[in-house]
């Protein structure tokens, strides 16, 4: 293998957001491309995200990874080979050492290497990273999100009004999708009539396995967002697209590529994750009416309830590129390797969360990995928490008793955001 030569290219890589260049990260895939330093007993193909075993019940599958696989192993797939980490402690270590584990090529979406851009702030390292976060953090911090509570509640009530008296719905399309996406559009300052179009593009980008289809959907999104950015530069408003389009760091305006990479990243991040989270949680609620009653009976504990549900139903993963040789749990991981923190599995680490599959609203507060940790922690985490809280409160006010529609078969969407394809409910 030429792993060492390829990895040495990383040393000379300069990350300049004003002149974004595609990092030359070794990309190995398949059985033929396993670096020599990987011990044979740690080579696995666990089937995360796509296998029938995973898709039968993803969170049970990820909880069982604690017993069925070594805590660190090398996963081989036709798409990408990578170390997989499932221990809470190890995931914290990786995510908290941004100098050793860098967020290079963090988004899998196809970009033109000759006209490259960074997804900002995700793919920018410290110290520049914080400058971008400071632009939007006042809006996305807890105090900023609290100002949106009334708006989010109104959106939730309006959406519930549209179907609450019908006695049944597909949760995903009736509520799980419209709530976070309409709130996101409000925050970004984008028109509500783009809601379903945006979702369809994002759905293809995140869940399709057809590269041509992904590129086409992404192309449409790029064209739309560039138009929206131009419009907000000409006519600034109070939305986040306008805020970014007209922002400055270090006394200069953001470049066109910085603005686009920032807006595009928020666009992707805002459309699918809360949606999947709500779908997972409502399936659990529909199957556990006694726990629904417990939530109704404990209104003052709503923050702990939200945190525990986010632990139990985390929906995504986080990948890093290793910048220097390092040993973890006796496993030699080398420069140029990729590591993926299996966040939902780490939230089932029994050393940190005993009896991990049990939803227990009385757990002591510990660091959950739903939003990762470290400098790249999800900036939308507080928004997600607020949306989940309001969704629970408003839904249970209107529809306190509900169940999965008899005969409905629950299937899961393959891909990097984990959730059921449909949750048919009756009440």
């Amino acid at each position: 293998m030429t792993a060492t030569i390829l990895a040495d290219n990383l040393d000379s890589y300069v990350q300049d957001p004003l002149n974004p260049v595609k990092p030359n990260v070794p990309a190995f895939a398949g059985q033929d491309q396993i670096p020599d330093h990987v011990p044979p007993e740690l080579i696995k193909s666990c089937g995360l995200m796509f296998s029938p075993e995973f898709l039968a019940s993803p969170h049970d599958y990820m909880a069982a990874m604690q017993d069925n696989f070594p805590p660190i192993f090398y996963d081989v797939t036709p798409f990408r080979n990578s170390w997989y980490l499932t221990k809470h402690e190890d995931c914290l270590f990786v995510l908290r050492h941004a100098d050793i584990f860098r967020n290079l090529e963090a988004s899998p979406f196809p970009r033109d290497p000759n006209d490259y851009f960074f997804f900002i702030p995700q793919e920018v390292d410290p110290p520049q990273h914080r400058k971008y976060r400071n632009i939007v953090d006042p809006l996305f911090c807890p105090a900023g999100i609290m100002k949106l509570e009334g708006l989010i509640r109104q959106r939730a009530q309006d959406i519930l009004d549209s179907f609450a008296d019908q006695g049944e719905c597909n949760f995903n399309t009736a509520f799980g999708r419209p709530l976070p996406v309409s709130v996101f559009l409000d925050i970004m300052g984008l028109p509500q009539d783009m809601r379903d179009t945006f979702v369809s593009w994002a759905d293809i980008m995140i869940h399709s396995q057809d590269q041509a289809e992904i590129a086409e959907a992404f192309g449409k999104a790029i064209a739309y967002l560039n138009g929206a950015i131009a419009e907000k530069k000409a006519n600034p408003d109070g939305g986040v697209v306008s805020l970014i389009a007209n922002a400055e760091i270090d006394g200069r305006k953001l470049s066109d590529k910085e603005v686009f990479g920032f807006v595009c990243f928020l666009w992707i991040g805002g459309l699918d994750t809360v949606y999947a989270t709500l779908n997972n949680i409502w399936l659990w609620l529909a199957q556990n009416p006694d726990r629904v009653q417990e939530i109704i009976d404990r209104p003052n504990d709503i923050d702990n309830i939200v945190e525990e549900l986010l632990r139990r139903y985390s929906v995504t993963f986080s990948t890093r590129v290793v910048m220097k040789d390092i040993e973890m749990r006796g496993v030699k991981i080398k420069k140029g390797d990729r590591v993926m923190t299996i966040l939902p599995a780490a939230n089932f680490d029994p050393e940190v969360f005993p009896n991990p599959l049990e939803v227990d609203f009385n757990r002591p507060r510990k660091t959950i990995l739903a939003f990762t940790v470290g400098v790249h922690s999800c900036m939308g985490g507080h928004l997600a928490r607020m949306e989940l809280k309001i969704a629970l409160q408003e839904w249970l006010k209107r529809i306190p008793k509900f169940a999965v529609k008899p005969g409905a078969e629950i299937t899961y969407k393959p891909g990097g955001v984990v959730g059921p394809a449909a949750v048919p409910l009756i009440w």
Partner: protein
Amino acid sequence: MPKVTYVQFDGSQQTVDVPLGENVMRGALYNGIDGIAGECGGAPSCATCHCYVDDAWAEQAGKAANAAEADLLEGAASELRPTSRLSCQIVMTDALDGLIVHMPETQY
């Protein structure tokens, strides 16, 4: 605007303006002050904005604001002391103008 002095573990210190209503964790982040990670952004769901309130300010700053803060402090990476707080849970008021907080050795 109220001022907060952040004292690093090595003894060096910086004094900056932190607006009323803003929290002490964010005051550090916005001013590029090291020693406070604040990685969850103030949920609170981590303990990486741990600080020791200066003894002279302990009474004004108060104790852990809620059970979540107390739980998280139990798991903080550095030694827990009577004046330990999560700085994201200390919100600036006029009464806290001049507040001094000390950084722990490490946040994780």
